């Protein structure tokens, strides 16, 4: 299964997506498309204050409105707090509201219109309390404390983290403090040839999925709770829901739905618990859909970050020591994040470089602002922007070409990452060179045109449980049952291709299904570019068992011992000159009551020394009169393994890249007095089809991933480090260094004016 002996029918082929016809005909059913008899519409009232005591809530008028079936406030719901790691999120605010947009009351009514009208009839009296908005202010001794009560943690906070982790240390509002590193940074910095200190800021951005958070809950007369929810990991979500409600997991059924984009934002329960309580109070099913205003003001966007570096280099600009600190603003609740600290925030803070001495500190801090959650490669885009800008600034200040700076310091095969993880078969230099060649790094350029580079390394996720079930019926067709939705990445299609490859079959002979949480095996879902690897392992394990069963059957049919059976590349079974294909074999098995055959397989999570690597090159043109930056061209170069499906592989590259372009050029959640004021898709600017640069992708195949058929991950590779390539290009064009995202004409013009002033 090393990817060198493929059938040519399945893995590597541009197969059309298994969910394709449903999606192009409008028949794919997303959570919002489900309607159950008697269904009500749920809406919630949100706090207009960043920090306030709820003095009184009068719901009498709302309750009296015809068509209203239930009205709930904090007093009507249990005290249980929800969290994927830190349990701090109430179902509805109880006594205190901690951000503008926090839910304080909710209504279920016959129509959406009645529910909205009822919200206007609820009278809430608030007493404003002191509030704090920036992480820096929140850590001051005099700062208002956002969560004065101790927060309960799910066990296993420090699992997988090899540093010193303190949860809720004695610093005001700090959720977690992680210190990690090696060597002797202080003394190396003291004797370094030069020291560089830089500071960067990255704002919160929204995941930008086009399908808003949606849930529909129906509580059956037998107590079985049916859930239709836009959630990427139904098995994990069911566990959290059961724990929060005190129900057995098998009394909750998450039904299969299609997900309209995730990008990390659809792993939490969001309104699910509230929707359940409304359904119970009304005695009817309830559907809740967040509108786009709520998504932007009260969703769970990416953490904003403040990042500082102190780095020492030798005369040749080789990195000697990095001291780095990142402070993440977590907003009012930590419960949307399933980990104690953002892994990318420390794991990738010192980049893809040989750093013999390293001291990293990562803090997550509560403020009275919108709670932050997970967005693709959590923590990594923020710190990658910072470190790839920082390295560029060092190169420029030392008069070294930015590509040469990376070549000089990038880790190569057998090196350790800055945190001491081993990496094998890493082709950083080859990938940088291939990208630079395709880009024309050394070619002459016009005035006002600039070029920049950034690099990024990230291993495939080999964590979390993946379970699959295979069934072969009397007709020889193979069914794979998966336990989580395809959030859009194409993983259902890839699963079908991997299954087909194991049996020498065409993907047409495989049916890909998703079970509900009562019938399917556990699947942790999309996360950390893991699925191709983890599903690949689970499928290989199930296929091995299935092949043994088929071999036993074939031996019986061909009157020989199982050891004499050979499985051919086309999936047929042979012994002593006799051959039988799978379909004929299963048809025969059916006459003996031996079909269908079913086998389960599970992955084997563990550390990996294989990784994925990318180098990005951007070209911009800057208008010196207006400061306007036009992104003209990007070359993205990738060290890859076996491609399972070239269409979905390239789709991942292009989609991730344009999200990064959004983060670089236009996207920003803007806060004013703690409230999100980019509350409309006209103000929060997602990239449109007019904003995309000319794109060239360079692939270096043969990298040899660790997963079956030598596949590896592509998911986050074109996304994370791209913004720094663009800001580095702006510096190259006009000498203006942008240390805060997004790029704006104002910032560039301001930089040009300051330069002119100095000159």
């Amino acid at each position, binding site marked *: 299964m090393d990817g060198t002996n493929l059938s040519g029918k399945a893995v590597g082929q541009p197969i059309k997506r298994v969910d394709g016809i449903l999606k192009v005909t409008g028949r794919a059913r997303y959570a919002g498309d489900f309607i159950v008899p008697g269904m009500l519409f749920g809406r919630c009232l949100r706090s207009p204050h960043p920090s306030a005591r709820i003095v009184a809530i009068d719901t009498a008028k709302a309750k009296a409105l015809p068509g209203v079936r239930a009205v709930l406030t904090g007093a009507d719901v249990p005290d249980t707090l929800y969290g994927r790691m830190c349990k701090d999120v109430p179902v509805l605010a109880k006594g205190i509201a901690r951000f503008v947009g926090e839910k304080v009351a909710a209504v279920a009514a016959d129509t959406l219109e009645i529910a909205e009208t009822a919200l206007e009839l609820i009278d809430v009296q608030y007493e404003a309390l002191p509030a704090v908005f920036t992480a820096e202010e929140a850590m001051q001794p005099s700062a208002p404390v956002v969560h004065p009560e101790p927060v309960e943690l799910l066990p296993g906070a420090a699992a997988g983290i090899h540093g010193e982790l303190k949860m809720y240390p004695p610093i005001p509002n700090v959720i977690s403090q992680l210190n990690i590193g090696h060597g002797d940074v202080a003394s190396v910095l003291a004797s370094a040839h030069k020291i560089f200190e830089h500071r960067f800021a990255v704002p919160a951005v929204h995941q930008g999925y086009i*399908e808003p958070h949606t849930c529909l809950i129906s509580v059956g007369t037998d107590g079985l709770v049916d859930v239709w929810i836009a959630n990427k990991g139904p098995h994990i979500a069911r566990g959290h829901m059961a724990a929060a409600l005190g129900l057995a997991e098998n009394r909750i059924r998450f039904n299969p739905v299609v997900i309209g*984009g995730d990008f990390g934002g659809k792993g939490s329960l969001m309104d699910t618990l509230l929707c359940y309580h409304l359904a119970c109070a009304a005695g009817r099913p309830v559907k809740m859909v967040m509108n786009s205003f709520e998504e932007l003001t009260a969703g769970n966007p990416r953490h904003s970050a403040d990042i500082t570096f102190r780095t020492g280099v030798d005369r040749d600009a080789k990195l000697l020591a990095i001291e780095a600190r990142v402070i993440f603003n977590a907003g009012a609740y930590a419960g949307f994040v399933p980990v104690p600290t953002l892994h990318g925030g420390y794991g990738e803070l010192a980049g893809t470089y040989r750093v013999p001495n390293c001291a990293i500190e990562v803090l997550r801090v509560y403020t009275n602002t919108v709670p932050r959650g997970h967005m693709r490669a959590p923590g990594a885009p923020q710190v990658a922007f910072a470190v790839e800008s920082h390295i560029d600034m060092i190169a420029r200040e030392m008069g070294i070409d930015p590509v040469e700076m990376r070549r000089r310091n990038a880790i190569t095969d057998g090196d350790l990452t800055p945190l001491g993880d081993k990496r094998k078969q890493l082709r950083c230099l080859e990938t940088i060179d291939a990208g630079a060649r395709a880009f024309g790094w050394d070619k002459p350029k016009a005035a006002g045109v600039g070029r920049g580079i950034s690099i990024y390394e990230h291993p495939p996720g080999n964590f979390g449980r993946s379970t699959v079930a295979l069934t072969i019926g009397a007709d020889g067709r193979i069914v794979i049952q998966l336990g989580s939705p395809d959030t859009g990445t194409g993983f259902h299609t890839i699963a079908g291709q991997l299954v087909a490859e194991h049996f020498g079959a065409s993907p047409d002979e495989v049916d890909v299904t998703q079970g509900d949480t009562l019938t399917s095996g556990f699947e942790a879902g999309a996360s950390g570019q893991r699925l191709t690897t983890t599903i690949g392992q689970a499928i290989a394990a199930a296929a091995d068992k299935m092949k043994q069963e088929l071999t036993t059957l074939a031996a019986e049919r061909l009157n020989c011992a199982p050891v004499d059976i050979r499985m051919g590349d086309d999936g047929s079974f042979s012994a002593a000159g006799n051959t039988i294909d799978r379909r004929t074999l299963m048809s025969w098995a059916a006459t003996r009551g031996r079909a269908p055959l079913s086998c389960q397989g599970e992955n084997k999570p563990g550390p990996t020394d294989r990784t994925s690597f990318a180098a990005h090159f951007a070209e911009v043109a800057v208008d010196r009169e207006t400061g306007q930056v036009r992104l003209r061209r990007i070359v993205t170069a990738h060290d890859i393994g076996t491609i399972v499906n070239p269409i979905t592989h390239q789709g991942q590259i292009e989609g991730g890249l344009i999200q990064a372009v959004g983060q670089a050029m236009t996207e920003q959640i803007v806060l004013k007095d703690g409230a999100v004021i980019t509350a409309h898709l006209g103000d929060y600017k997602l990239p449109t089809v007019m904003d995309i640069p000319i794109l060239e992708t360079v692939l270096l195949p043969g990298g040899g991933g660790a997963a079956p058929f030598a596949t590896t991950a592509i998911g986050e590779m074109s996304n994370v480090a791209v913004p720094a390539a663009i800001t580095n290009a702006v510096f190259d064009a006009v000498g203006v260094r942008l240390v805060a995202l997004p790029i704006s004409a104002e910032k560039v013009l301001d930089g040009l004016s300051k330069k002119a002033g100095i000159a």
Partner: protein
Amino acid sequence: MRTIKLTLNGSPISREVEDSRLLVEFLREDLKLTGTKESCGVGVCGACTVLLDGKPVSACLALAVHADGCAVTTIEGIAEGDRLHPLQEAFLAHGGFQCGICTPGQILAAKALLDAKPHPTRAEIQDWMMGNLCRCTGYYKIIESIAAAAGVE
């Protein structure tokens, strides 16, 4: 309440609707045609794009009564039985979608273009599709799909 008469995906229908009923609610809730998606609700994202007498409109901004006397085309109405529309075939073959939530709107917007101008340039395709957001694809394969359906380079 008033009665509206329209041609929906080629078939005449007549329905009573509230004056304030949005076209997207009329399609999704009253007619159970959930292929039309609602996202931003303010006419920015294009997910709810349907055709009214061949012209693309945001069904989240239009009232159902606006459709009175019109031909309304939704994603459910562009294939002929099992035979997909060339745009649907092209989006499938060229990977013009991932999660699929914006796809009905993308395909209908593109159909309006190709019905009016069967062989647009890539620049014309790009300009026309500006009103339909997609967060998954980065748009490259959407342009490629539309160009392929139109048979242009």
